[in-house]
Structures are given as C-alpha cells and as structure tokens.
C-alpha cells in the first residue's frame, strides 16, 4: 500500500526527525501514512496514544467513545482541555489531533463499542488499540481481534499499576490465554471507584503508541508473548512470558467462542466505567426522599461504605463508616431490625454492600442512589462533588 503514498515537502519537513532514523526513513514514514489504527477509548490511555500517533503521521486514526469531557477527566486525559468540558470526547480529541497534525485523517465513532457495531467500526483498520476502562469492552476487543486477525495493543491501569502487551493470536497468545475469565464483579475496583495516578496512563499509553508504531514499521521486537508489569511507586518494570493456551476458548485449537457474545453478561458488569451505581428500583432511595425522612426524625442508620480518607472530602451528618472491605467482618455491628441506608461516592460500592447484607438476610435497607455526590448536588450543596 505504501508504494502509492507520497510525502509533500511540508510533510518531509514535519517528519524530518523520523526520516533521519535509518530504521524509519522515507519508506517507514510512508508506511505510517498508509496505516490505519483504531483507538478504543479517548480517556487516560487513549489521550497519549491518539496524540502520539497523530504527531507521528499515522495516516488514518479512528476514535471510539461516546462520552463527553468532564472536569474529573482532566487530571489525566491530556488530549482534552478545560474549554472542552461538556464536548463529545471524540470531537474534542479530533480537534486537538488535527491541530497537532492537519495532514492526517481522524474518523470518529460517537457510540459505545459493542458486539453489534464492532465489526463495522474495526473493519478499515490494521491495528486495534485497547484503551478502554472496563472488562466487557476488553474481552470484546480481544475476541474481535482474534476473529478478524488484527493485533490488539493492550494497556491497562489501576492506581499505580500498569500492564502492557501486544496480543496477536496469529503470532502468540491472546488476552483470554492470560485471563480466561474476568474476575468476579466487585473484586477489582475501577478507576472511577479506586482512583488512578494521573500520569500513569501517560506512561502506559505512550508505550502502547510505541508498540503500534513498531508494528506498522516492522521494526524491533514487539511485545507479543510478553507482558509488562509497571509499578510507578517502585518504578519497576517486570516482564513475564505469556504462552498461547491450546485450550483457549477463542484462539485455542477447538474454540468455543466463534462469534462475538454478550460481554456485559459474560463479565457481570456494565461496559463502561461510569459510577452511577444503582441497586435496582426497589432498593434505591433518592437523596431528597432520604433528607425528608431524616428531617421527620425517622430512625435510619446511615452507613458509609467508602474508605476512611474519603471522609476528608465529604460526609453526611450522623453517618457511620464501615468500609466495604470490612462489611462482612463487621456485620454484627448492624441490626437487621433497624432501617439502614447505605451510601458511597456514587452508589456502586453501596449497591455491592447491599448485596452482601441481603445475602446475610438483611431486608430493611436502601442504597442512596447516586451516593454522596448526588446528595451534594441535590440536598447539601455545601459539599463538593468528586
């Protein structure tokens, strides 16, 4: 393909530092221009990936996301700016990328990446970059890449930990060879629940961009069959070898997954990292209703299942703290005959706490819908939202 590609004088000047590297040169730069890469997610990982691929002159870059830019994104999602708050992420990202490099084409897909549209969206691209924030979309991305024979440049982050690999089932293992099953819902907190060091996706995302460029250029040793484990706290990079699992359900010898499935059902969690948790209509209580009932003097125990350090940000008067991780061990402190309202930051952890208590026989309880953040928006506006 790259034989038909030419570079203008302006492009030759722009890519001068690439052209000077013998491993890239004019031929390599043409390969980059002829390449098409799909970036799934324009969040923490997608931001540096998209910026560096655009700057490097990857000719066609696709972006999939359906979110809008939020203030809480800007601590790490450096492709977006304060002026972009409220704007569609794919539009905000495209504008920044075309400002960085007007010679490339940026295609945007303002839709959730799901089994129904994944083939259509991925079809024109050579390489898929997994910058998503949830397990269902990661399994979908993997299976799609295996079924279509495209390499999956994988990156994942949590707090201070990062992982990176290239899953290319034609040449090595896939994501499911390493993680045949997702962890049980709730074991691994998401970034919206557990937080993430803002610069961490910068480290892992730039490595994903590096791997994508190497794959396009055909240089170096791609991370196929190897997994990087990065720990920002100790600044350690550990590498482990990954092997293809002959019994892998999607890339093994007798695959049982031969088409895309329902990944939300497979993982038991939603395909996004929004943290507006609900325990279901019958179990939720709205902030205003709770405020009215407390005002009437009803006896309700307010159990905060967040972590102790979150109390410094906001608290509800009269609350008692029992972090979710301690709930099972401290259940004796609760009385199932007394009404309980559980809450956390936004309702996800408290919905899980409600399940824990329900399985122990508790019935007189509610989940504060939207958590203390909804309480801060609707009842006590003196509290910050985080």
């Amino acid at each position: 393909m790259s034989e038909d590609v030419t570079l203008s004088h302006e492009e030759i000047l722009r890519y001068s530092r690439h052209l000077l590297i013998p491993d890239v040169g004019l031929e390599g730069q043409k390969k980059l221009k002829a390449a098409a890469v799909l970036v799934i997610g324009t969040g923490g990982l997608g931001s540096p990936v998209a910026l560096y691929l655009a700057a490097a002159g990857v000719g066609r870059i696709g972006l999939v996301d359906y979110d809008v830019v939020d203030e809480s994104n800007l601590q790490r999602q450096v492709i977006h700016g304060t002026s972009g708050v409220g704007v569609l992420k794919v539009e905000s990202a495209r504008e920044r990328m075309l400002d960085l490099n007007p010679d490339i084409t940026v295609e945007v897909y303002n839709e959730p990446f799901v089994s129904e549209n994944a083939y259509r969206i991925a079809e024109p691209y050579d390489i898929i970059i997994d910058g998503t924030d949830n397990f269902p979309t990661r399994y979908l991305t993997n299976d799609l890449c295996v079924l279509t024979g495209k390499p999956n440049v994988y990156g994942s982050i949590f707090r201070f930990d990062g992982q990176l690999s290239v899953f290319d089932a034609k040449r090595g293992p896939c994501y499911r060879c390493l993680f045949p099953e997702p962890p049980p819902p709730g074991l691994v907190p998401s970034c919206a629940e557990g937080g993430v060091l803002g610069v961490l996706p910068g480290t892992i995302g730039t490595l994903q961009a590096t791997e994508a460029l190497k794959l396009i250029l055909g240089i170096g040793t791609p991370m196929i069959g190897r997994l990087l484990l990065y720990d920002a706290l100790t600044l350690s990079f550990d590498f482990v070898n990954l092997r293809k699992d002959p019994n892998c359900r999607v890339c093994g010898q007798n695959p049982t997954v031969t088409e895309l499935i329902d990944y939300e059902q497979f993982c038991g969690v939603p395909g996004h990292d929004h943290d507006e948790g609900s325990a279901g209509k019958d179990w939720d209580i709205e902030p205003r209703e709770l405020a009215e009932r407390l005002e009437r003097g009803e006896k309700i125990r307010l159990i905060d299942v967040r972590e102790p350090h979150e109390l410094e940000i906001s608290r509800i008067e009269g609350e008692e703290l029992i972090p979710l991780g301690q709930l099972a061990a401290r259940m004796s402190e609760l009385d199932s005959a007394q009404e309980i309202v559980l809450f956390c930051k936004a309702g996800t952890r408290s919905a899980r706490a409600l399940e824990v208590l329900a399985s122990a026989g508790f019935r007189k309880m509610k989940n504060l819908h939207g958590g203390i953040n909804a309480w801060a928006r609707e009842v006590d506006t003196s509290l910050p939202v985080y």
Partner: protein
Amino acid sequence: MATLRVPTPLRPYAGGQSEVKVQGGTVGEALAEVTRQHSALQPHLFAPDGQLRPYVNLFLNDEDVRDLQGLETPLEDSDRLMLIPSIAGG
C-alpha cells in the same frame, strides 16, 4: 526466602504490603504459608477445591506456574513470585 509481589488490588488483603517474604519448598507451600499469615487473601487466590482460581495468574520469575509444575513447582530462596491481577482501567 523467596518474595511474593502482591498487586495493588490484593494489597488490602495482605496487610497493605506490596511484597511479602514467603517460605516453602514449593509454590503451593509458600502460598499456603502466605494465606495462613493473611487469611483474607485465601478466598481471592483459591477456589473451594484448593486449585488456583482461573483469574489468578501466578508467575515464578518470568514464567507462568501453570507452564511449570503448577503448585508443585520447587521454590528457591532467590525466586520471585508475582501475582498478576486483572485490571481494566484506562
């Protein structure tokens, strides 16, 4: 003694430690010792039948213990065991 690297999501169940010293002639013995010290870790690592849970990846130095001798793999003092978590943030 060998060391076991505990990933961030499992640290709350291992007294907040990122690395623990482990003793045992095999990987299985070392893990049994760790889960005796930190009982909260036990259900996260092992299924009720005593096997490692399928989403738990345990590597000895740079190899998956499933590609070695599993829980029977001999352990040396200089060895490094790593638990590799499923994380999904992006």
